[in-house]
């Protein structure tokens, strides 16, 4: 953070509560669920239940929890191949999520999508995009739908710092401003674009500077502080709901695992990783909850155990579900247009 091109970011590290207790407990629960899910995916990968590769988000839970908790029914999200956190934070059925990653017929997409493509339109979870930046224009379209329908809904798109060097990012930033779209840009700045440290690919660490170039309101927030993420994102969401247009929130965070399962993350030091694990989003929230006597250690452990048991059961059931068997997939490829469409 000593780079002269980088603004000083105040990492909150505070233990004062500014949100209702039930919101904080809710944020903790969402984060704990994401951590439990990702840890289980990691184990399952090692046990041969996950095919190809998978992209985990341990360390970044506060971003998904804090940004998604302010959303309501009818809001839409797009996210990336590192998208399990958003899906779990939004309430995707864990068993169906596991089953999808395990390639089973009970998966959210019947095993056709996989780890990089978790979707559930009933929850507004449009999709994870495995092409960097590709989800941003799609979120702009969802925001257009919200704008046409005038129900106060918004769209939210998650992307990493690495996405902000691709054209789709810049095109969508511009479009969102000129059309005043109710679209929230949530940048998870985890300091690495795949294997490359941010300053080797980007002229500065503060991605929010890019929002200034598009005259878009923006904030930088400690992405490991769920309370702070929630507060900042809520402000932008409320403005967007009232027709105030898009907002950009850069969340400073860190991923504990490598880019994907083929990446041992040898490009970073143990010290760097350890320093971020000190600022772990779950640890921070536990501290907040306990110091302010919102929950006792025992109550927190009870929450952890409940989530852990639920996660284990979901994964176990998913692993016992059948694989889809060979069949024609034409119906999954093309919709059958009903004759009534043609009048």
């Amino acid at each position, binding site marked *: 953070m000593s780079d002269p091109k980088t603004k000083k970011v105040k990492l909150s590290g505070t233990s004062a509560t500014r949100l209702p207790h039930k919101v904080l407990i809710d944020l903790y629960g969402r984060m704990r669920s994401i951590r439990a899910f990702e840890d289980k995916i990691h184990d399952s990968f090692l046990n041969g239940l996950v095919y190809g590769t998978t992209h985990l988000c341990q360390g970044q839970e506060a971003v998904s929890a804090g940004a998604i908790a302010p959303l309501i029914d009818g809001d839409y999200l797009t996210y990336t191949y590192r998208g399990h956190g958003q899906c779990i934070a939004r309430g995707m059925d864990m068993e169906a999520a596991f089953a999808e990653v395990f390639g089973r017929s009970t998966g959210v997409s019947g095993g056709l999508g996989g780890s990089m493509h978790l979707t559930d339109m009933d929850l507004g979870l449009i999709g994870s995009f495995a092409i960097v930046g590709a989800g941003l224009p799609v979120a*702009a379209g969802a925001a257009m739908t919200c704008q046409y329908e005038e129900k106060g809904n918004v769209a939210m798109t998650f992307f990493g710092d690495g996405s902000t060097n691709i054209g789709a990012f810049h095109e969508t930033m511009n479009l969102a401003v000129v059309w005043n779209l109710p679209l929230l840009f949530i940048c998870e700045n985890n300091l690495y674009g795949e294997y490359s440290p941010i300053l080797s690919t980007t002229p500065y660490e503060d991605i929010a500077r890019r929002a200034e170039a598009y005259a878009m309101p923006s904030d930088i927030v400690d992405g490991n502080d769920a309370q702070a993420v929630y507060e900042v994102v809520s402000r932008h969401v409320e403005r967007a709901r009232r027709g105030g247009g898009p907002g950009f929130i850069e969340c400073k965070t860190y991923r504990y695992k490598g880019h994907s399962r083929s990446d041992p993350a040898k490009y970073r030091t143990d010290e760097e990783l350890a320093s971020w694990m000190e600022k772990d989003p779950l640890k921070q929230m536990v501290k907040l909850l306990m110091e302010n006597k919102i929950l006792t250690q025992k109550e927190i452990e009870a929450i952890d155990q409940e989530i852990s048991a639920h996660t284990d059961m979901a994964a176990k059931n998913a692993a016992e579900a059948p694989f889809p068997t060979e069949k024609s997939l034409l119906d999954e490829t093309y919709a059958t*247009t009903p004759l009534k469409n043609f009048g």
Partner: protein
Amino acid sequence: MEITYREAIVAAQREALKNDDRVMVMGEDIGVSGGPFKTTVGLFEEFGGARVRDTPICEEAFVGAAMGMAVTGRRPIVELMFADFMGVCFDQIVNGIAKHRFMCGGKVMVPLVIRTMGGGGTRFGAQHSQTGETWVSQFPGLKVVCAADPSDAYNMLRWAIKEDNPVIVLEHKFLFTRTQDVDLDAPISADILTPAVLRQGNDVTIVATLAMVERALAAAETLAAKGINVEVINLRCLRPLNMEPILESVRKTNRLLCVEENHSTGGWGGEVAARTTSEAFDYLDAPPERLTLPDWPMPYSPELEDAAMPSADKVVETVVAMLT
């Protein structure tokens, strides 16, 4: 009613905008200006800037946005000013729009239309003369149609807007001023995708798309004067490809010539020839032939461009050679 190809495109969009609130049109300069090729004239005035929307120059963003609208219940129509510009938003078309339903396990529909204008013969040079036919016809999840005359332009677009799948409607710049008597009240139907036999003959089957159709028809006139009767088929739909009318024709003529405005490697003519060879081998009296663009980009200078394009004269020569 006698209308131009261009007016047919406007009329189909006007009908959809009028009848379905979910429909909107967007593209570069298609609102206030009525479109660089005047294919949205009057729509902005009638339906307003929110539904007939000028976009910034950012194909990837607005084509992606069309997908976002489609999966959330709207029915957008996008105009891409030149088919060549599909290259700019290719990821959204082939990785996003084409595959999204599939990756969602078939639970989501992506009802959108991308209209785009391609083709040579207009002195626009190498980056503004491609038809785009073979670029997009490879991908399951898309439907791809080619409008060869005003009736096609009108009825294909009307059908595409009602489809619950993404449809790419390819138009040809050379055809905008062509006129035809079109029944504006005809029922909307997927029948418009069936390859159309435009001229009957017994000697050679010629399959063509877009501007090559009228060249094939012109060649047929010349050939008729020489006592050669060719059957001309407007292929109409590249994906899904309906081979049956072509096979039926080849079983009668025993010869096949595909005329297309694409390079031969990977052109649709190769697919049509391969399927004909597999499915009607015993009926063929000669190897299937293809007339395509040469293996260089479209040159600008008139004589060179004209030489590159498949022409009626070349069709005549090829047919005569096939029968000799």
